[in-house]
């Protein structure tokens, strides 16, 4: 068990290292010139050169990369090109907003998705299932920001129930988290549904039925327990989508958060901020996946024995 966890931990560190390298290469190696962009079109070549030197962009790529890695191990993500404040401080101040949006949306997605998935499987082939499948198809096909715009139009502009934008407390969180949660819930719904349907064909279901257990008891007690275990793994996949969605939703609802900082930094070509924001999101993704992996072994006893056998 311990060995497995340590192995996962090492792999995660490797993935974070890889992600840092990839982001660094994309942002610094691709043929864009931040110095020229910051200086503007009218600037003379000398000014551009001066800015480049100021931002340490005139040094070899390898040196920049090494400094970047050393900085990250110390928790230093560099300084913003525009405001000169440390990126880490700025991002950490924004992180809780993104985290709370992601968590509440994830919770909504989990509850909604699992409920609908169970209903859909329970009424497999009949109209509730049909209706849920149809809605799921529509929800995954709607751009999340348009869903958000329509929700604002409906609930804030016409009905006036909820505030349009901003960060003001719980009421302002309802629309953003619901929009994001709704989109992501489809994954849970589909997975729970197909898992339950798979489980229904397992021999143990026949055995329980033969033993004389009622349909409902077999379904809600035995089948569901087995089907829901796998929903935990989905959390790891879905967190990426939640973080991606958060970028759009934060911009749309003009909320604080990592995504919005990143989007604002792009228009100013503030590369360290963009890099830091993406890195922080990737670390979140990796950490959540690590937790999911570890907790999965803990939840599902079959894996524990398997891993022991594998270790011996």
């Amino acid at each position, binding site marked *: 068990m311990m060995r497995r966890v340590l192995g996962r931990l090492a*792999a995660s560190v*490797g*993935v*974070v290292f*890889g*992600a840092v390298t*990839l982001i660094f290469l*994309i*942002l*610094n190696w*691709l*043929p*864009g010139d931040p110095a020229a962009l910051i200086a503007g079109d009218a600037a003379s070549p000398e000014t551009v050169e001066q800015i480049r030197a100021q931002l340490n962009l005139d040094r070899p790529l390898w040196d920049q990369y090494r400094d970047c890695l050393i900085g990250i191990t110390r928790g230093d993500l560099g300084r913003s090109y525009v405001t000169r404040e440390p990126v880490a401080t700025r991002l950490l101040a924004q992180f809780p907003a993104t985290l709370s949006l992601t968590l509440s949306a994830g919770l909504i997605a989990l509850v909604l998705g699992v409920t609908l998935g169970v209903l859909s499987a329970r009424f*497999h*082939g009949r109209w509730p*299932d*049909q209706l849920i*499948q149809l809605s799921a*198809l*529509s929800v*995954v*096909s*709607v*751009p*999340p*920001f*348009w869903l958000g*715009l*329509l929700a*604002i*139009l409906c609930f804030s*502009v016409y009905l006036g129930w909820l505030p349009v934008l901003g960060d003001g407390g719980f009421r302002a969180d309802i629309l953003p988290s619901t929009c994001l949660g709704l989109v992501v819930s489809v994954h849970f719904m*589909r997975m729970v549904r*197909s898992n339950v349907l*798979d489980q229904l*064909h*397992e*021999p143990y279901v*026949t055995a329980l039925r033969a033993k004389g257990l009622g349909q409902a008891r077999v379904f809600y007690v035995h089948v569901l327990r087995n089907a829901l275990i796998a929903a935990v793994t989905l959390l790891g*996949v879905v967190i990426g*989508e939640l*973080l*991606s969605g958060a*970028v*759009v939703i934060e*911009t*749309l609802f003009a909320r604080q958060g990592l*995504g919005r900082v*990143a*989007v604002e930094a*792009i*228009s100013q*070509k503030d*590369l360290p901020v*963009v890099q830091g*924001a*993406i890195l922080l*999101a*990737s670390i979140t993704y990796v950490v959540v*996946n690590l937790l999911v992996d570890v907790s999965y072994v803990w939840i599902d006893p079959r894996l524990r024995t398997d891993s022991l056998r594998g270790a011996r």
Partner: protein
Amino acid sequence: MKEALEQVAASVPVATLHAPQDELSEPRVARPSERVVAPAAQSSKPMAAGGSRLQAWTASAAGLVIATVLLWAIAPELIAPYAPTQMDGSAILLAPSSRHWLGTDQFGRDVGSLVVYGARQSVLMAIFAVLISCSCGVALGLVAGYTGGACDMLLMRAVDVWMAIPNILLAIAICTALDPSLHTTILAVSVTAIPRYARVLRAQVMAIRARPFILAARASGASHASILRRHVLPHCSSTILVLATLGVGSAILLGSSLSFLGLGINDERPDWGYLLTQGRGYLTVAWWTVTFPGLAITLLVIAVNTLGDALRRRLEPRGAAGTR
């Protein structure tokens, strides 16, 4: 429901067809469960007929939507009543009427015409993004799945890293590094989609590689390249087709998200996402400026996804490919 019914109904004959082949390659554990499926399929046969009629109907509706949008993309000037650049100072933010069916925007441009002209950007972007991501992803998946060993491990670790960066953020990084243009958007969207193809293809190629006919081809002296091309790739073609179709839908969504964030294609040729960004500022006074471009995206993506699901049902009755 229809999806599952069709799956169940279709799986019975196909399962029996494939059964001898499968038993040769690998004794599958799931065999008893397939027997359990059979009675269920029989009981639902009368409904499956109704389901397939509904399916045929939705598939044709989807085809119609896709054809319409393609027509818009190819020849917008035939359909749009106004030029997309035609501004009318006396017709600013007008509600839908008989003159402007979908209303006008803040510059007095006809929203309907803008939507029709915007189709080209979105369609071009989606087609090229899918072509690029699909060919790269399939190549990666083929190599990783067929060679196995260290090469496979290395490639899959790279894919893990790739997937650890949430896709919009990866696209944002690429859009930041390069100048905004249609090419940049295409590159950004395709790069983020590659791992999905690679993963699914790898899994499928690994299963195919274990089957006896690959060994037979090797024994008769075929080279690895020709086995990949003539034996492995054709077996993956239906998976690739389904993935690519569904990929068009996600490419359109991601591309429009990027232009919504102001990273995509610029002012001169506004695509649907950009129209939404612009309309957002007038949300409270002019609902039509945000509603119709979004509706166009949604309808097109629903149509593409419906088509993808229909293809999946037709080509992969047992849902062999991963759903992600």
